């Protein structure tokens, strides 16, 4: 572990930080090669914007759940490296139940005879129980993009759905930063399990702990966030989701996951394990740099505001890219929070029509379904008709008469039962819809699923951070 350095004269050696997971459901196939590259820290990013909603449903069925189901797999695969060379694992896969995730880690450690392994949990991101009292104390919870208040949005949702009981948020989580993870690591934790910590902060925490960076060293923190942003989507920096020559090399199923060697000044060298597929270059790195970014000169994060346009990137070897240090400014006074608001139930059907006149037959069928729902007295709040193969997503004017089309028709109703009943209007059209040749209807109808609106807002930092608890236990 690096030594904090007040004078700047002493320099800690670079630290190797790996991105082993990009979301809940990512492939575990790349992990073994990544571990063979002997990272000092393995970061597992498991929480997309509303993954917590999925995990909350798990916890509602079984109160010992609420972490990602694949967490035990990752921990079992990685624990030998923890035992043999003190690799650290940092993950937000604790979801809505980091405490239970900590118990899982304990069991994995015990099963591996890893007595003495130190396991930390971080809680305090869940602010759902506080929404009412903090509102009463003056928090207005305004939508980040629209400025609408949470209270107004809930009232509008209640009116839209026509429900008798007012619509209530299902989840509310603040994005925590790197600080509680660094605290856990400084207390000797080898596995840190958190809930909603900002994706890039998992990686920043590793660099801060190793190099002893101060939590107000904005430029170095921005470097750590830039590194984290580049690693947090696993294969996307190493040739995944790539608009360049993505068909090279010819074994893309061997797509590797990335790591970075981060030096004490905040510079970094990105790489992938030797002998793996994929590609890592200036071009693949820049694709990820701007991914899901707004203003790249002000990338907001709980720890720092980073300027992604400052680091210089260059190819420094085969499948190796170097980055100069980034620059940043003081962290925001507020934390971002995401509140999930139930907005009804959706259901959808996908059916196929073939040439000739495939598009027209699809259009007619969609129109018939909407009329049949009306005749059945089923209130539908919103429809969506997409004709794949005829410009549903891509530029419409490029599609002449297509050889076949997929009609995707989706709808939203206030309740699940109505949404499911609308779907029953579809199969009859195979026999009695006038458009000939409706295919695949038996396979293409979904079950109703709940729609949840993401309501991004801000919340006072001190309110949240005063409730954050870091606990370290020993296996």
């Amino acid at each position, binding site marked *: 572990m690096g030594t904090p350095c007040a004078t700047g004269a002493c320099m800690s050696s670079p630290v190797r930080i790996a991105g082993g997971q990009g979301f809940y459901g990512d492939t575990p196939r790349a992990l073994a090669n990544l571990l063979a590259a002997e990272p000092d820290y393995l970061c597992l990013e498991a929480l*997309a*914007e*509303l993954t917590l*909603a999925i995990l909350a449903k798990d916890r509602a069925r079984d109160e010992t759940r609420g972490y990602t189901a694949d967490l035990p797999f990752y921990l079992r695969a990685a624990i030998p490296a923890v035992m043999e060379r003190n690799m650290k694992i940092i993950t937000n896969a604790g979801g809505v139940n980091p405490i239970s995730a900590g118990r899982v880690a304990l069991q994995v450690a015990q099963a591996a005879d890893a007595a003495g392994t130190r396991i930390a949990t971080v809680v305090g991101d869940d602010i759902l129980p506080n929404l009412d009292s903090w509102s009463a104390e003056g928090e207005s919870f305004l939508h*980040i*993009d629209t400025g609408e208040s949470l209270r107004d949005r809930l009232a509008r949702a209640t009116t839209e759905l026509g429900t008798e009981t007012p619509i209530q948020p299902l989840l509310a989580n603040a994005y925590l930063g790197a600080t509680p993870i660094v605290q856990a690591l400084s207390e000797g934790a080898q596995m840190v399990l958190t809930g909603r910590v900002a994706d890039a902060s998992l990686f920043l925490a590793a660099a801060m702990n190793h190099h002893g960076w101060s939590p107000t060293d904005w430029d170095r923190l921005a470097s750590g966030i830039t590194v984290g942003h580049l690693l947090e989507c696993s294969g996307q920096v190493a040739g995944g*989701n*790539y*608009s*360049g*020559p*993505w*068909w090279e090399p*010819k*074994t893309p199923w061997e797509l590797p996951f990335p790591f970075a060697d981060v030096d004490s000044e905040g510079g970094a060298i990105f790489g992938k394990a030797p002998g793996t597929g994929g590609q890592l270059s*200036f*071009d693949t*790195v*820049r*694709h*990820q*740099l*701007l*991914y*899901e*970014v*707004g*203003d*790249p*000169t002000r990338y907001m994060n709980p720890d720092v505001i980073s300027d*992604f*346009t*400052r*680091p*210089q*990137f260059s190819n420094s070897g085969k499948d190796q890219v170097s980055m100069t240090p980034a620059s940043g400014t003081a962290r925001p006074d507020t934390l971002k929070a995401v509140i*999930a608001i139930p*907005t009804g139930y*959706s259901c*959808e059907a996908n059916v196929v029509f073939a040439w000739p006149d495939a598009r027209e037959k699809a259009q007619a069928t969609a129109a018939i379904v909407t009329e049949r729902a009306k005749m059945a007295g089923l209130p539908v709040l*919103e*429809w*969506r008709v*997409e004709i*794949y193969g005829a410009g*549903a*997503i*891509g*530029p419409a004017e*490029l599609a002449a008469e297509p050889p076949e089309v997929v009609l*995707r028709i*989706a*709808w*939203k109703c206030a309740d699940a039962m109505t949404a499911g009943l609308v779907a029953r209007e579809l199969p009859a059209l195979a026999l009695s819809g006038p458009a000939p040749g409706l295919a695949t209807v038996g396979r293409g109808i979904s079950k109703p699923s709940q*729609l*949840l*609106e*993401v309501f*991004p807002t801000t919340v006072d930092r001190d309110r949240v951070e005063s409730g954050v608890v870091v606990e370290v236990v020993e296996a």
Partner: protein
Amino acid sequence: MSVHTCALRELVGFRSGDKANLVNVALFADTPELFAHLCSVITAERISEHLAIPSSSVACFPAENVLGINIVIQNALGGGGPATLFGDNLGKSFASRILDLEVELPADHPIPKRPRPDVGWATDLLHALPQA
């Protein structure tokens, strides 16, 4: 000198993604000269006109260090990720709606053509599958 044009798909690398109800589409030039040119022709007005949406919902941010232009489009996903009925609820394919935009090239710029995929390895594999 004749003014010539080409579709963006021949000119730039790209990636799109979501943030709640926002979509971002990043475009990448191969040379500083092309980046400077694209900064002048890829504007919020141009993009909003192409997508037939209000220009106030589009913002363009240059990132010269990676020769990139980040296009941010508000209110683009029908409510965003888990709330929307859109098939591409995460905006992963959104870039394709911008890539057909025809833009002017500098007069001395050759007509570019990005390479087309060679997926012989995939068709070979598919032919070898056990099938009915």
